[in-house]
């Protein structure tokens, strides 16, 4: 079985840890607990692949995350559907670490369940299309598209 290092990237409070919890433990908590440094989770995807998921703390501090990204096999970008400006953080990261652009990736537009608060516009889709080709509207709370998004990423790694 081959292990793959997957890094979750996104602004703080976009729901990275919740998405990992939903995917790995099928669990969701309303309580917000900020991640310090990095949290590691693992999940066997199929008989040949195991994901080692690095849930990296919110990307506000300059460059502090860079060591954690070394050797990543794939990237999961996460933005908040109710806070579209969280895309800006992804732009900053990619400017800082352009090598990430070549890696297999997906983007989760999270908190899709908060339909009344969503402020999404077409221009945000355009911006995301420059970062990754695969985007999924996800909800860590309901589990919507979470499994599908991770599975899609695993297919890219084959």
């Amino acid at each position, binding site marked *: *079985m*081959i*292990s793959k*290092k997957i890094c979750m990237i996104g602004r703080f409070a976009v729901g990275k840890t919740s998405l990992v919890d939903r995917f790995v433990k099928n669990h969701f908590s309303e309580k917000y607990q900020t991640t310090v*440094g*990095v949290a*590691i*989770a*693992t999940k066997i995807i199929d008989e*040949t692949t*195991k994901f*080692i998921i*690095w849930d990296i703390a919110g990307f506000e501090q300059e460059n*502090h995350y860079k*060591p*954690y990204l*070394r*050797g*990543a*096999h794939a990237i999961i970008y996460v933005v908040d559907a109710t806070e579209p400006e969280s895309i800006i953080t992804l732009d900053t990261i990619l400017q800082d670490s352009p090598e990430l652009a070549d890696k297999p990736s997906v983007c989760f537009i999270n908190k899709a369940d908060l339909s009344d608060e969503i402020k999404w516009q077409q221009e945000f889709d355009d911006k995301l299309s420059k970062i990754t080709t695969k985007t999924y509207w996800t909800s860590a709370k309901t589990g919507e598209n979470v499994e599908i998004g991770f599975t899609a990423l695993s297919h890219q790694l*084959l």
Partner: protein
Amino acid sequence: MSEDRDKLKVLLMSEEIAQINAIRKLLDNHNQFSQKISEVLDQATDLTIQNNPNFQKKFSKIDSKAYVRAIKANKQTFIDALLPIIGPMIRQSVTSAIRRFVSDVNRAMEMGFSAKALKWRWQSLRTGVPFAELVFNNTIAYQVQQIFLIDNETGLLIEYAGQEGDLLQDKEAMSAMLTAIQDFVKDSIDKQSAGLSAAELGDKLLWLIQGNVANLAVVVKGAPTNRLRDQLTDACGELHSDFNQELTNQEKWNNNPELKLQLEQLLLTKSQSEEQQVAKSTRWWPWALMFLLLFGWLSWSSYQKHKTYNDHLSSLNQTPGLVLQDFSQRKGQYIAKGLADPNTDLTQLSPDIKLETTPFISLDDNMIQARVAQYLSEPDVIVTVNNGMVTLAGLHPDTDSFSTKIMQIELLPGVKSIQNQLTKVLSLAEQLDHFLTENPTPDGLNVELRDETILLSGLQLEAVGTPYLSNLASSFPNPETSSLQLYSPEALKAELSSTTLPMVQTGTINANQLNTLRNIHQKFNLLYTDNNQLKLKLSGKSDCQGSIEESNTYAANRAATVKQQLLEFGLSENTLISVSDICRQVSDQLDTNKLGVWFEVVE
């Protein structure tokens, strides 16, 4: 035109056409084509895998259902194929298991019986620290328990050695976390430094040893030396040189038995002293001790079994009326076969003995004795038998039926003759007569039999009456003594001196007065027998009414009348002193309480 062109084509390209035809023929002929492909297939496969690593996966994918189907369809083929493999596998597994068992027994014996082990057990009991922990602390200097070989770049686990049960969580997650911590330390404290090199995890120590491609994370329990760290650092370098390709090839990660074996060789344990190591290599004494214990237990068990058998046999042989024919032990139970007299006492035998007996009449003296005693059924008759001669002793009831029974004893089996030494049982009256003959009743006392009860009555001094009562009670328990009066001389003297005989008449004595005088006579007689210096003083009194002269006469008459009566009862003249109280003054009141005779014992 067309023909010319064909002719030209033949002229110009005849050789190529022949080659094309040959190739076509080759393609059409499957055998020849397969032959050709087989010549390049190996080389072509290698080249394909080199260019496309995923190509190999297509061949390595396992379809478990296909295996199941194949095995079901060709059971015998698989059995034939596996048979030569399974045998050695089982042998190797059994050998390995036995080796582990012997090692465990060695350790258990050493840890179980040594003085140190007992001391540690006591310490464990006292402090609550687990025994295993104490053994580790006292015997092991350090122990390398887990080794992670982690890729520098990705933080992914390349290989792991150690007990996976000891892991708090997934080993891949552990290696990723260790890398993250390493990165965090570098990023937070000093980017130029080598990063974290050691950390404490409870009672364990974590060492991080940097390598060019991969890092070694080592979990050590105990107190490791710097020499161990040097050793592990060298080992990390050797791993990089020996497995240079494998360390960078992710396909080989977590799937490299040789690398895992090399890591397992680094799971080192060091004892606290080299002597212990030497002792471990020649630990023959636990086996010797176990052998001695086993031998001792077997000997003791055999001795006990033999002793029990002999004890049971002896008790059976010594049981009167039992003739033992066979005695054996079967399934933990002793079985005795033979003949048994109905009067044989089997209650003394052990409950472990099961008896399978046939009834018979024993001519053993003990059995004859039991038979005669059972026949007579008299607890007071003592039966003894010697060579068939029955001797009867003790008391027997004086009845006709018993006499008949004695005569019939000779008819019982084994009885040759009878010697009758029985004594007839005496009636209570006969026993009392016998007693009174030997112990005459003292004067003043009376013994009689009334309604099967012995009565002792009368008047007597304690010095005489008490010993007699004791003597009587020893022969006849609880005699009736409610009518018995025993006095000390002082008490009797005081009683007599306080006695008054009321008497209105002066010359006659009525029946009541006569009884009182008889009692006084009897009591004084006892006192006089004890002390012949005593005298009974009689004082006649009047109420001094009428004339003084008459009153004095009446008082003197009363004393004289009483004295006369006492003389008639048998008292002598010189034991009696008769006086009268003289009236000095005439009284005008009638007072009958002043009419009578007053008694006093004087010396």
